[in-house]
């Protein structure tokens, strides 16, 4: 593997603590994400990985800690703010718009870039149509990239699981994000689908220069793709560093394999 040069820090979370009532989900978590890297968050079930992503894009608001994104430090992110600032994500349980076609789902991902108003869209001819065609071109590029040309007009509810995951990635890409949060993009896939997805993740990172935060359970995938890995367990941060270092960490081994006391 060639030596990768990582850019500046784009996102830094510091001392994040999140609890729901008496339930402590995240406890004093701090890490940073550098421009152009693939950053993984791993940990056993219930470690707080998805909650961490939810904190980053503003779905959950932590009680303590700060989030610094692109030089601005905040106590919490707001959902639409995160979207407008170029943070996109996919979900562990697919969250597509089931009644709409693949094309419409990905087109919806571009909603923030559409400037025509409601009246112009009602008349359609003119600005709204010009914009639709312009954005359609971008969406077709994404469809080509993800190799889903054949299903562009299929309602996504009818698609198999692996394809739905791919469409969801397409919807996130449509926003041309700077930071892409992927919540278990390979869960429940067979080897071939996983290989495809890995290729897409690497290509997105390589071709578009998108910074990626990845949650994944498949250790082979994580160790191969990631530049750096954060390990969480029961809301605590166990380790943070390059894959090889994390793999050798005793606390991580204990968390995954268990310890006999």
């Amino acid at each position, binding site marked *: 593997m060639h030596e990768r040069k990582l850019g500046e820090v784009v996102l830094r979370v510091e001392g994040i603590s999140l609890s729901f009532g008496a339930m402590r989900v995240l406890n004093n978590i701090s890490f940073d994400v550098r421009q152009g890297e693939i950053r993984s968050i791993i940990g056993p079930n219930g470690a707080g990985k998805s909650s961490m992503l939810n904190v980053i894009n503003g779905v959950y608001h932590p009680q303590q800690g700060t989030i610094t994104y692109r030089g601005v430090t905040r106590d919490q992110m707001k959902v639409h703010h995160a*979207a407008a600032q170029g943070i996109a*994500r996919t979900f562990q349980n697919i969250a597509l*718009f089931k*009644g709409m076609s693949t094309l419409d789902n990905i*087109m919806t991902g571009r909603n923030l870039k559409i400037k025509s108003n409601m009246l112009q*869209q009602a008349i*359609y001819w003119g600005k709204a149509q010009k914009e639709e065609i312009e954005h359609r071109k971008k969406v077709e590029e994404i469809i080509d990239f993800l190799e889903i040309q054949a299903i562009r007009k299929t309602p996504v509810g009818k698609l198999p699981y692996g394809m739905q995951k791919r469409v969801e990635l397409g919807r996130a890409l449509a*926003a041309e994000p700077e930071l892409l949060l992927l919540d278990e993009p390979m869960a429940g896939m067979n080897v071939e689908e996983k290989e495809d997805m890995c290729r897409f993740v690497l290509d997105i990172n390589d071709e578009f220069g998108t910074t990626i935060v990845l949650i994944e359970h498949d250790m082979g995938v994580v160790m191969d793709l990631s530049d750096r890995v954060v390990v969480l367990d029961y809301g605590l941060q166990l380790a943070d560093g390059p894959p090889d270092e994390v793999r050798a960490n005793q606390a991580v081994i204990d968390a995954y394999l268990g310890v006999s006391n």
Partner: protein
Amino acid sequence: MLYREAGEFKSTYRADQAILTIRQDRWFMWALLVVAFLVIPLVSSEYWLGTIMLPFLILALAALGLNVLTGYAGQLSLGTGGFMATGAFAAYKLATAFPELHILVVILMSGGITAGVGLLFGIPSLRIKGFYLAVATLASQFFLIWMFNKFGWFTNYSSSGVISAPPMSLFGDNFVTGPYATPEAKYLFTLTLVVLFALMTKNLVRSNIGREWMAVRDMDIAAEIIGIKMLPTKLKAFGYSSFLCGIAGALWAFVYTGSVEPLAFDVNRSFQILFMIIIGGLGSIMGAFLGAAFIVLLPIFLSNAPHWFGLNIAVDMISHIEFMVFGALIIFFLIVEPHGLARLWQLLKEKLRLWPFPY
């Protein structure tokens, strides 16, 4: 065999994004418009135009409005009747206070006023969802009708409570409301408006705002995360939906019945229009028209059918049978195709594409 898309290639996104992409569909739509604009006014009796086609078109417009809100944006509403009443009374107040206003201005403005009222009652939708929202909108239905009955200002302090729409003309002697209006003029005026608003609605639902509505309907959390703001999107749906319902109400009072009365817009009207979009197909422009046709035309067909077959049945018996057959048909259609008549139409087209081969 006749209906197929094979061999039709599109080389531009513009062509691929057209409303009807298959040639035969376009022919069918043009034929339908020719029939609606030319053949029906020529061959139909005054009775047919004035008492069957008019309410069908107006209720189809109201169904279109509700379908935007419920079918596309996923916000269940039982306030349609109230919004129609708002449109009717707004048009009445405008037409009596400013008699020099043109009928089109009166109708569009009453739609605008209703949109404002709809926005107001749409605000709770940010917090309330599903059946609970339906109950909240039901409250708006009762409140609006109560308000129009309670305050004499809305009826210009008429003692009888029944107020008639003033005669208004499109231009010159072409009256579309009042006693001088011919059924043909009323029909063509209403048809033109309904076709234009249907086209406008189709344009909206295939554009960005339509996708945002459907995104909110299908998965609101994901919609928020990709940058769709909940309140403006829902309010736009409420506003546009009540705009259409208000226009439908104004047309109902001015062009169809000629009198403005709250009773025509009670909660039964709201249910009737909700049934139209459920039977016709939620989230479909075609569905609003099919549903309105089903609910308006079928009872007329059923009450006349025994007569056509030469059966001599007592009138009260006919109306009992009518109710039973109507109810049975609704259940039948909902079991056969829960997604409505529009979906049946789509399935038929899919079968036709392959015909005469099974697959």
